[in-house]
């Protein structure tokens, strides 16, 4: 269970995250939506330790992770993928996976053995299979297509066996068809891996069709939380979206 | 270590004036070299490792011009103009080929030219120490300020350097060209999209940087001995200045240069053998407490 309690962060007077309190129950799939500049990425950066919160708690199964460094937070089980695929351009897909498992097993500074370690193989293999990257194992990450790079980024998070997986716009920069393929994949992963998944998404069709739970952020505050139907009927949400950008996905 | 000499000097106004003046001229010469470095880094994001060579050429050009014409003004002009042309050629023909490449490649091209330029100077002017000699106009009775000796040439040197600093500062802040240069430093893509020739700006900035270093060399020629490789120690010190002041900051270069000048001048009394060590120590202390230098912008 991931519990966010009164989380706040401001940048020079602008409240990017303003007293946010939220629960993500184990095994839930939640979409975080909100207009541009709503503070969605800041919210992710706070949870994963890329930014230090000004106040508040981030409780993972009761343990407060607020203010810890990214490596510590990752090791406690919160993995993330990035809006712009964040990968290791010169490593191959397979090397990336093997090295990540190595890091997860606290063997990233082992000097006396050869890479790759035998015990990392199965997990790496598994992650590549799950994301359909096994056939591209020997390609260097830089030579992969945009979509495959996004998958590799997710695989990097997933291979660490996280309890909570945060995906920052998994469908960013994709065409409609590719978006749906990607989001189906995310849903599959959620169903088969039984982990808590939180993703940021702009496409409302996708959000309302896929996500059982939705959180709406606006100006750093929580505007609404709930099931798709409730969100669709929520006055404040309609106001926020129609007021800023008229979106096809929101219809009364 | 000779702390008595240092405290003794601090107690005497004559010594204080002499050492401060000497610190000022070291600082001013360093500033002229360092400001070019910082400008080139700010606009082109290139660390010009061969910048010391322009200082060296400035001095040699000035010496030769002075020997032929006997005119000090012409010597200064030749030192500055010659290195400006050299800077332009260097940038257009060589450096412009490695902008997209690895930082290491840029450094290597510069390193190559450090070696080449030093040898070229040895070929033309010979390997031995040379001296330009003090122009007759300045061979007058030194001034005495509060008991300290101040040669009039030092005042000229400080004056010229300060004038150059002011023209540069005002030029960048107020003129159209200055605005374009600052814009190019900030966002090169935007500037070229607006139809401004970035190649011209880059070449111009290199020429300007070369000219300032050449002017410093020319100004230094009457008071320092000339030798191939003379640019290098100046280069290292200018690096310290730019790094202390913050890469890309002109004010930082000025303050940094004066600080280093004073450290050299007073440090040579108290720590005659460790004067250079003091500078490096100072640089380490500054960088550890403020990793981007005194006036550098914080990078997130």
């Amino acid at each position: 269970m991931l519990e966010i309690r009164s989380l706040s962060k401001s940048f020079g007077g602008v409240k990017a995250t303003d007293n946010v309190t939220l629960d993500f129950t184990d095994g839930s799939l939640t979409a975080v939506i909100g207009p541009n500049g709503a503070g969605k990425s800041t919210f992710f950066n706070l949870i994963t330790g890329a930014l230090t919160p000004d106040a508040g708690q981030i409780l993972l199964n009761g343990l407060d992770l607020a203010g810890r460094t990214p490596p510590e937070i990752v090791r406690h089980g919160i993995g993330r993928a990035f809006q712009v695929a964040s990968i290791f351009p010169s490593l191959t897909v397979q090397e990336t996976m093997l090295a990540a498992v190595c890091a997860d097993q606290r063997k990233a500074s082992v000097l006396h053995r050869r890479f790759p370690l035998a015990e990392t193989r199965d997990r790496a293999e598994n992650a590549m299979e799950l994301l359909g990257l096994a056939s591209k194992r020997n390609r260097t990450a830089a030579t992969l297509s945009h979509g495959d790079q996004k998958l590799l980024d997710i695989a990097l998070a997933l291979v660490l066996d996280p309890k909570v997986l945060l995906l920052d716009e998994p469908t960013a920069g994709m065409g409609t068809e590719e978006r749906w393929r990607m989001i189906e994949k995310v849903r599959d992963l959620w169903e088969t891996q039984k982990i808590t998944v939180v993703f940021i998404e702009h496409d409302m069709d996708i959000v309302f069709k896929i996500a059982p739970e939705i959180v709406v952020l606006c100006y750093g505050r929580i505007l609404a939380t709930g099931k798709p139907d409730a969100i669709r009927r929520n006055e404040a949400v309609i106001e926020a979206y129609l007021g800023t950008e008229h979106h096809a996905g929101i219809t009364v | 270590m000779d702390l008595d000499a240092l405290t003794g000097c601090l107690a005497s106004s004559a010594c204080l004036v002499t050492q401060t003046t000497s610190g000022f001229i070291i600082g001013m010469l360093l500033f002229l070299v360092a400001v070019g470095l910082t400008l080139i880094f700010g606009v082109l994001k290139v660390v010009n490792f061969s910048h010391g060579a322009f200082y060296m050429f400035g001095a040699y050009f000035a010496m030769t011009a002075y020997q032929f014409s006997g005119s000090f003004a012409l010597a200064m002009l030749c030192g500055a103009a010659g290195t400006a042309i050299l800077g332009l050629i260097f940038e257009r023909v060589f450096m412009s080929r490695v902008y997209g490449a690895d930082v290491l490649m840029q450094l290597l091209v510069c390193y190559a030219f450090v070696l080449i330029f030093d040898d070229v100077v040895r070929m033309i002017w010979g390997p031995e120490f040379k001296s330009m000699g003090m122009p007759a106009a300045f061979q007058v009775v030194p001034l005495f300020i509060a008991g300290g000796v101040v040669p009039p040439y030092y005042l000229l040197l400080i004056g010229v350097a300060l004038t150059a600093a002011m023209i540069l500062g005002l030029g960048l802040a107020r003129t159209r060209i200055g605005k374009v240069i600052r814009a190019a430093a900030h966002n090169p893509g935007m500037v070229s999209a607006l139809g401004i020739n970035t190649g011209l700006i880059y070449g111009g900035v290199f020429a300007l940087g070369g000219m300032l270093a050449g002017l410093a060399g020319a100004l230094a020629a009457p008071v320092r001995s000339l030798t191939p490789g003379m640019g290098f120690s100046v280069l290292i010190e200018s690096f310290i200045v730019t790094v202390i002041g913050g890469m890309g900051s002109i004010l930082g270069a000025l303050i940094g240069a004066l600080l280093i000048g004073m450290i050299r001048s007073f440090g040579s009394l108290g720590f005659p053998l460790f004067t250079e060590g003091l500078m490096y120590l100072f640089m380490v202390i500054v960088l550890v407490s403020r990793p981007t230098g005194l006036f550098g912008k914080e990078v997130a």
Partner: protein
Amino acid sequence: MTELQAEQGAQALEVPREAKTRRNRDALIALAVFVVLALLPTVFSSKLLLDFVIRCAAYGLFATSLNLLVGYTGLISFGHGMFFGLGAYGFGLMMQKTGVPVPAAFVATLAITLVVALVIGAICVRLKEIYFAFVTLAFQMLIHSTILSWVSLTGGDQGLRGGIPRPPFLGIDLSNQLHLYVASCALLVIGLFLMHQIAQSPFGYTLRMIRDNATRASFIGIDVWRAKLTIFVLAALFASTGGIIMALFVSGAYPEFAYWTISGEGIFINMLGGVTTFLGPMVGTVLLLILNDTVTRLTDYHGLVLGIVILFFAIGLRKGLMDFVVEWYAQRRNGAGERG
């Protein structure tokens, strides 16, 4: 194309067994190279050749260790030469002042290097790119200035003179050129083997990840600062070993060993040979030393010629020799694959 990839081809599942055999194979190669080098004097008894190999050992260890920082971790150090100088002076002083046996002085010098590198590294590795380069350079110059000014200990600009005593130990007499030659070869081969092991270990891949994308590395649980500090210290130890060989070779230590130009040459050697292969710096070392020796013999204007050669590499080739060879080979193989 990485080395692992080149070796494995497409058979992914054979990974772990190969890992072990690869190390055994490397050990065999190292042994073979050492035997060949050690037998060299029986075929060519030229004193010049032996001297050349000893110098290659000193600079090769230094340059390869620098590549662990520059090529593998993306840490561009301008001050790596300080550890070369530290090794030479530490060892020379230890032998001159204390008269301990050679192996003890060797270990003690490495211990001193370790402590110094730990302190300097802790300050430097948190700085970003260009600032890291300059602060390491500043430390290098600080050490150089200290050597120049601490005349009573270091002899100032005269260096450690009067020769370094090299009392025989275990039947090895390092004042004998042949013995020194074999010992240098042994240190070189062991050093290269150990560094290759580091490069091919899980830690070596951690370094590659940091070079490629340090932010991402921290988000898979890697403590970037610690990893950088570790490799900074390890590289310093190998550079120091190079300095020790140099001190033994010239039977002294000079301020130039700690001057920034040593670092400059190290970077240049890396570029000359190429930073994307493990042996690139070694190839670069041999090239630079041959180049230096011939050019010095042929002309007084040795900087001019060297500069033009550097320009050729930097502007013409745009990469090191080994990088060039590896790419050319890969292209040829791909070309052949497409045709077949």
